[in-house]
């Protein structure tokens, strides 16, 4: 047995978009243990329920994370709608689906870029972000905000996407699909990319299950989990299957996310094809909320859980978010064991960590 030493990794590190600190116990060049610590950017958003009423909370919840902001808002609103017992108009459900999938696309494209940057492929990095820019433009055109939409409201949505804009989205989806195909081939077939990703950081199906992994991280290990299948928003009307891979290595995680972008394009097309022509965008809610609800939403990074509890007052009693990165951290630490120190940066990236969400 070699001599053990501890190397701190993060919170500031070139591959990390957000601060997480991991103490790496190493033996020679091999990691034998990884001990994470979070808490650098805790903002106490959950405790704001004491001071902001349930409508204002929509905007607070949305700002939990800059990347999956729409899905945070949607998860919270769906939970509140269940507490109120209101039904959302069908068009609003479809609009939510379209926005959610646009969000997933831009999140995965961002991640692909970071991954390419992580293994030193600068050119590919910029290509991914160039494509992502088109998706961001669609978001800005439809909601007015590039990343934070502020279109959700308890009971529905406040903005419509007109026919012309839906057509522009469809056209852009074609362009994105074309450009993405080139990127996909590079990620999945290029020799140098494969050599960095294949067989690195394997998480078996049993491990992923036992450690409660979520989202693409779990799907890459062969677990068929996708909260969209639970049927919120317009997903019950759309035809899709969770994308899974069996190998559980970094390559599988990359594969799952790339294919999910194509799936999102497909879902947006389906949703635009089926969107009902209604003028109603929200059901007015009356009175104060009373009751509690657990809402599960599939975010780009995996399953997010929203818990709301109200007791007939304007302010909620309790609000809690369990974010996907929080669920994936134990998996990450397990995965880091027995890997080379030089792979750690890349492996941390492959779970798509979103620390702002985790710390709220």
């Amino acid at each position, binding site marked *: 047995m070699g001599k053990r030493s501890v190397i701190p990794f993060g919170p500031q590190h070139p591959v990390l978009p957000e601060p997480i600190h991991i103490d790496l116990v190493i033996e020679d060049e091999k990691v034998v243990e990884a001990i994470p610590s979070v808490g650098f950017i805790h903002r106490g958003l959950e405790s704001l329920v004491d001071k902001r009423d349930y409508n204002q909370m929509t905007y607070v919840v949305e700002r939990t994370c800059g990347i999956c902001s729409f899905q945070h808002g949607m998860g919270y609103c769906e939970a509140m709608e269940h507490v109120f017992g209101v039904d959302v108009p069908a068009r609003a459900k479809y609009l939510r689906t379209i926005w959610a999938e646009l969000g997933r696309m831009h999140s995965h494209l961002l991640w692909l870029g970071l991954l390419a940057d992580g293994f030193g492929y600068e050119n*590919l990095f910029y290509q991914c972000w160039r494509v992502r820019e088109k998706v961001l433009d669609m978001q800005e055109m439809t909601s007015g905000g590039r990343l934070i939409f502020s279109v959700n409201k308890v009971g529905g949505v406040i903005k419509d996407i007109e026919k012309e804009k839906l057509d522009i989205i469809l056209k852009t989806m074609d362009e994105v699909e074309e450009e993405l195909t080139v990127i996909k081939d590079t990620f999945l077939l290029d020799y140098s990319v494969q050599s960095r990703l294949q067989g690195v950081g394997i998480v078996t199906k049993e491990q992923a299950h036992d450690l409660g992994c979520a989202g693409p991280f779990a799907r890459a290990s062969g677990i068929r989990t996708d909260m969209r299948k639970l049927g919120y928003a317009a997903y019950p009307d759309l035809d899709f299957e969770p994308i899974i891979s069996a190998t559980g290595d970094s390559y599988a995680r990359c594969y799952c996310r790339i294919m999910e972008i194509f799936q999102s394009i497909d879902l947006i097309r389906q949703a635009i094809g089926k969107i009902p022509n209604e003028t109603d965008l929200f059901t007015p809610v009356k009175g104060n909320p009373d009751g509690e609800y657990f809402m599960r939403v599939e975010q780009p990074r995996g399953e997010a859980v929203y818990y709301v509890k109200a007791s007939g007052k304007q302010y909620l009693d309790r609000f809690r978010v369990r974010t996907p990165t929080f669920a994936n951290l134990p998996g990450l630490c397990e995965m880091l064991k027995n890997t080379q120190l030089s792979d750690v940066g890349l492996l941390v990236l492959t779970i798509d960590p979103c620390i702002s969400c985790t710390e709220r």
Partner: protein
Amino acid sequence: MSILKYAPEALKNLFKPPVTTKYPFEPAVYPEGARGHIEITIDDCIGCGMCVRSCPCGTLSVDKMAGTWSIDRFDCIACGYCVEKCPKKCLTMVEGYQTPGAKEGKVTYTKSPEQLEKDRIAREEQAKKAAAAREAAAKKAAEAAKQQQPSGLEQAAKK
């Protein structure tokens, strides 16, 4: 060969114009309905304070008497909730993001002197009306009391 998978694309990109715009030398293009910052048509504002109560950031303040409305631009998250809540529809979300700066972003809008004068006259008239209404109500109450008194005596006599 798969090792040069991306080479043709990379070569093509060498001869393409950049996808970015040269902001600030070229103007930024905002789509219609972009959520940039809040503007107010101050003369339409009635100082009801709905926007102040609805704002999740507590960045707004309004003074009905002085006819002012202020916003701290750096605290505003451009959520648009105040625009939705304003009963007079005098708030609008317009394009153009707040530029960064070292100074405080607080801006105060004051009503025009003509509008302030109109408001003052309206307030006075309202006060007069209210006073008149109070007087009338007091008169009515006194009359009612007068009518009630004899009936009270009658009842006592009957007993």
